[in-house]
């Protein structure tokens, strides 16, 4: 055993350690003993007991820029940031999307889930009602300095199921617009203080597209959606919410969708991405590449693309998604923490899990550097946050956040978003009319709602 234990200090190679040889050995013995001696049925090897009480297992789906920032935050709390006691954290990263959520549900159903897991708030309706996540103890959180008042109400309201809090938001990550300041300036779209001018109407947005196209000599507004399983829905859902109409998915169906409002939205989308002023046939990476290489004045993207865009050397501006209909609304989601269901939770570990979540929230400034708006609002008040450019210019988006309609099958990376995207893509590509696309969306939602609800 020549390897240093991670607890021995900063010299250890990887503080967010995964598996040490010590643990490997323990597994061997547990496996051999448990399996062979105790026979098939009682031969369960509990990883919880095998990996030692002190190490907290956390799951998330953050890779790339987010993944590295999360590593940084975990490292900070592991060492005991802000004078708090440290942690031994065992981090597991799984692939973003359905595979992550499937594994999360299966581990909870199996009863030996991790201590803490990340979850898009929009997915909570698939986990809390079915008992796949356990509730947070707000008193305990308060003890560690985190209370309900620390979060934007628009987001906090989605953390509850039947009055109990099941998720603690880490961030709010809206679908916003990035723009090339130079092009926007030339197109006359900047205020005297250098912010994007308010739009206020669909026509203003269309005009802005034309002005930007004129300024760049190429495309005005860029949006990648072809074969993407979320982009069209993000754009649609944000604009639809701005009309003030309701989009609800009551169990058993039919869905409550204002068809006229939806047609207005899809019509605007098709007029905007007409294939002339603004291209209508880009895929996600294509749009990203076009924007970073200066072939467009504005891009509609999630704020999480900020690190990539910053590297491009553009004079980058950002703003909450412009209000073009009657009400302000921005489509968002929120990375949150949940306590996956454990059959037999150890109270001391649960306490540590609460403390861990609270400590990570206090590191949100690090998280904000990737573009995310910290959900824990005390961080927004820190001078460090105001200095973040362009993050601070869209922080208001949290106040008017709109998430997916709550239902067990909806949310980030869900089949629902995928199915909403298909007809929208057809409409943008000109293969169908806005009316038909909307009817198709209603039908798809209805089909999903008619399925027996597995969580109720």
């Amino acid at each position: 055993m020549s390897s240093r234990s991670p607890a021995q200090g900063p010299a250890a190679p990887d503080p967010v350690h995964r598996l040490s040889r010590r643990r490997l050995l323990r597994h061997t013995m547990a496996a051999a003993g448990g399996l062979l001696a105790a026979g098939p049925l009682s031969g369960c090897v509990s990883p919880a007991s095998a990996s030692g009480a002190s190490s907290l297992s956390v799951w998330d789906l953050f890779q790339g820029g987010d993944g590295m920032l999360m590593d940084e935050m975990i490292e900070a709390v592991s060492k005991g940031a802000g004078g708090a006691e440290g942690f031994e954290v065992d981090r597991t990263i799984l692939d973003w999307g359905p595979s992550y959520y499937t594994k999360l549900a299966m581990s909870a159903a199996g009863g030996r889930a991790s201590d803490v897991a990340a979850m898009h708030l929009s997915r909570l309706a698939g986990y809390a009602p079915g008992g796949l996540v356990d509730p947070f103890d707000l008193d305990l959180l308060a003890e560690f300095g985190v209370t309900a008042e620390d979060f934007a109400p628009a987001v906090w309201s989605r953390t509850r199921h039947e009055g109990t809090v099941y998720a603690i938001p880490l961030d709010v990550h809206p679908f916003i617009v990035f723009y090339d300041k130079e092009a926007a300036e030339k197109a006359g779209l900047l205020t005297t203080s250098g912010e994007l001018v308010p739009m206020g109407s669909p026509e203003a947005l269309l005009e802005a597209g034309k002005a930007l196209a004129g300024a760049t000599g190429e495309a005005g507004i860029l949006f990648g959606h072809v074969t993407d399983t979320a982009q069209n829905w993000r754009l649609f859902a944000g604009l639809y919410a701005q009309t003030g109409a309701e989009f609800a998915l009551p169990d058993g169906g039919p869905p409550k969708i204002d068809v006229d409002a939806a047609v207005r939205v899809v019509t605007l989308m098709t007029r905007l991405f007409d294939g002339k002023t603004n291209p209508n046939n880009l895929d996600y990476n294509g749009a990203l590449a076009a924007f970073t290489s200066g072939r467009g004045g504005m891009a509609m993207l999630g704020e999480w693309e900020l690190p990539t865009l910053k590297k491009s050397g553009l004079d980058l501006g950002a703003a909450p998604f412009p209000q073009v209909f009657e009400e302000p609304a921005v489509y968002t989601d929120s990375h949150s923490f949940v306590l996956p269901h454990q059959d037999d939770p150890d109270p001391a570990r649960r306490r540590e899990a609460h403390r861990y979540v609270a400590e990570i929230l206090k590191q949100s400034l690090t998280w904000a550097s990737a573009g995310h708006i910290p959900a824990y609002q005390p961080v927004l008040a820190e001078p460090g946050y105001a200095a973040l450019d362009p993050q601070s210019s869209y922080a208001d988006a949290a106040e008017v956040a709109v998430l997916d309609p709550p239902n067990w099958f909806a949310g980030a990376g869900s089949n629902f978003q995928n199915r909403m995207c298909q007809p929208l893509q057809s409409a943008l590509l000109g293969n169908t009319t806005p009316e038909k696309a909307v009817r198709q969306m209603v039908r798809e939602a209805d089909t999903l709602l008619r399925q027996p609800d597995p969580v109720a």
Partner: protein
Amino acid sequence: MSATVTTVRSRRRPPREAAGSPLLLGHGRLPRVLTGTALVVLAVVWLLPFVWAVITSVQSEEDINTTGLSPFKGAFTLDAYQRILERGNVTVWAFNSFLISALVTLITVAVSTLAAYGFSRGTFRGRRALLGVTVAAIMVPPQLLVVPLFDQMTLFHMVDTYAAVILPQVVAPMMVFILKRFFDAVPRELEEAARIDGASEFRVFRSIVLPLSRPIVAAVAIFVFIGAWNNFMWPFIVTNDPDLMTLPVGLATVKDAYGVQYAQSMASALLAALPLIVVFLLFQRRIVDSVATTGLGGS
């Protein structure tokens, strides 16, 4: 139909038999050059992915992403391997794979040889019916049972345990069938003599029948081991804890904070490929025999 026995035996002949075969060549007109060329082309196509993977794995991520991969441009580095080994995941999964495959093989071989012997020599009531059920079960693809099996493991509180990975894999009706047919063909004179001398049935099995059956048992063991080593679906479904995952499951499921990195991806793929390739190089003959004898269900 009884090629099980003959194939195994024919393999004991001197190893070069294939090379001397007269088929196609002899004084045939099919030119050696043509055959040779076809073989070389096929072999190149089959080895190319490996070569490409090896080349990728010894370059830096930067070289791959910036200049585009040219096998001859980037500088040689073992960085990717070093990082993979430092992280330690692959080592743990390899260990799990070995442990799980070894236990699956051990239990399967033990349970199946015993059962095959019982079916071959036993006279208990219901033997034929049970044998019939066993043979019929060969048709049941284990993949179709994952949903109820997961449900069962939840019920037993066994999800995320080694036992849950291993036990459902030890049911191998096909292997029982292959072994039983082999035992059926083993002459009984020796056994009867031993029985007359008062040897217990287990003793007869262990010291007479089993030694005679070593080749087929080895063939079955190898076949089961390879199957368990490469099994994906069930271990994937029943393990969520990365510490318990096997190589294929861990590599497919657990990601890295940095996102996709091709050099490291290829390095871990090659590291994971290594154990069985080495084993193959060492025991080529036995493995080839095993596939040939068990692959068609001993027919």
